[in-house]
């Protein structure tokens, strides 16, 4: 049995992420080698998608440590269930997204369990678990952080749609398949989310507020 060579990031087919046949072939080759138990093929798949999945999880959970845990869980599950992956049903990345979103939901649900602050029973200062990690906060620019914070203001359902559309660049039907809802529902959630984001980011200087209104049109 010959092991699949570890492919350096610079040598990846440029089309792998765009879903073209060249990229799909590369990924399916990796998967078939991984199914034969070749560790290097697993390492390649992990290297190919780990940052992608982490960003997705971070955007949904808004917390670096949680996103790391969920990313790790996602790959553990995906590698364990690799034989169950059906390429004719969805792209490998879409399958990973589906696993990651399900785990993000579980993580969020667990965080909603009734809890009380340790501050109530302790005199010592207790760090706020929901506050973003200062290191990761510093890594984002002011502009990007404003967008991430605005995303955090959306309901989880709207946030999922926005992240899959804007970050994953997925079609509405594909988002519907991942979330288990009709494409029309995805579209209406997208409208709501877009409107909400427009309002939340309206005061930010990066957004041009030159949208014509009835009064300006009448003046024109």
């Amino acid at each position, binding site marked *: 049995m010959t092991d699949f060579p570890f492919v350096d990031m610079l040598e990846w087919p440029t089309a792998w992420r765009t879903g073209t046949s060249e990229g799909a072939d590369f990924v399916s080759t990796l998967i078939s080698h991984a199914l034969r138990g070749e560790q290097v093929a697993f390492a390649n798949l992990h290297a190919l998608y*780990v940052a992608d999945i982490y*960003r997705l999880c971070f955007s949904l959970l808004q917390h670096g440590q949680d996103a790391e845990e969920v990313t790790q869980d996602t790959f553990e599950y995906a590698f364990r269930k690799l034989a169950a992956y059906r390429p004719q049903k969805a792209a490998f990345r879409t399958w990973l997204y589906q696993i990651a979103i399900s785990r993000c939901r579980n993580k969020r649900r667990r965080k909603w369990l009734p809890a009380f602050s340790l501050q109530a029973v302790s005199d010592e200062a207790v760090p706020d678990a929901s506050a973003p990690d200062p290191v990761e906060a510093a890594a984002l620019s002011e502009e*990007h952080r404003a*967008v991430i914070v605005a995303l955090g203001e959306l309901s989880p359902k709207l946030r999922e749609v926005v992240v899959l559309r804007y*970050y994953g660049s997925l079609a509405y039907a594909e988002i519907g398949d991942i979330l288990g809802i009709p494409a029309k529902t995805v579209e209406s959630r997208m409208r709501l989310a*877009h409107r909400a984001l427009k309002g939340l980011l309206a005061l930010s200087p990066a957004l041009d507020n*030159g949208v014509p209104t009835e009064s300006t049109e009448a003046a024109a």
Partner: protein
Amino acid sequence: MNGSAHVTDLVADYALGLLAPGLCQQVEAHTATCEACRRQLSAERRLTARVRVALNAVPAPARITATCPAPERPARPRMWATWARAWALALLVAALAGSGLIRGNRGAHEPWLPGAAVAATATALPTATSTPQATRPAHIHPLASPTPVAALPGETLSTN
């Protein structure tokens, strides 16, 4: 401003890729000539681009790219284990048959089966009313047999 009606309500949907092809053409034709609607479309597109760029700018920590979860080898059916189990079962049956614990034609005169064999054959045994008392150990009571009730002095037991 041109002569056609403004497409303000359609512009956001157009930027989000939610419009049918016919309506897309209408928006494109109108924004080609209407400065106000073109500005609105530009603002919508800037918003979507802004969110897209911010989401892609989230840095992935080096530690997650450095550690890959150890993959498990795909489980293969272990033939040797199946054969070993089959041989062990065959040997057990042969040993039991050799020791006389399993017999083909058990008659009413044969001794009571011990332990697990009793449980296994319990349903096949005759009912308590028809089982001869002699074939059953004294400490085992038939299931359907009521405990005899002794009459108290001066009391008459009813037979019904």
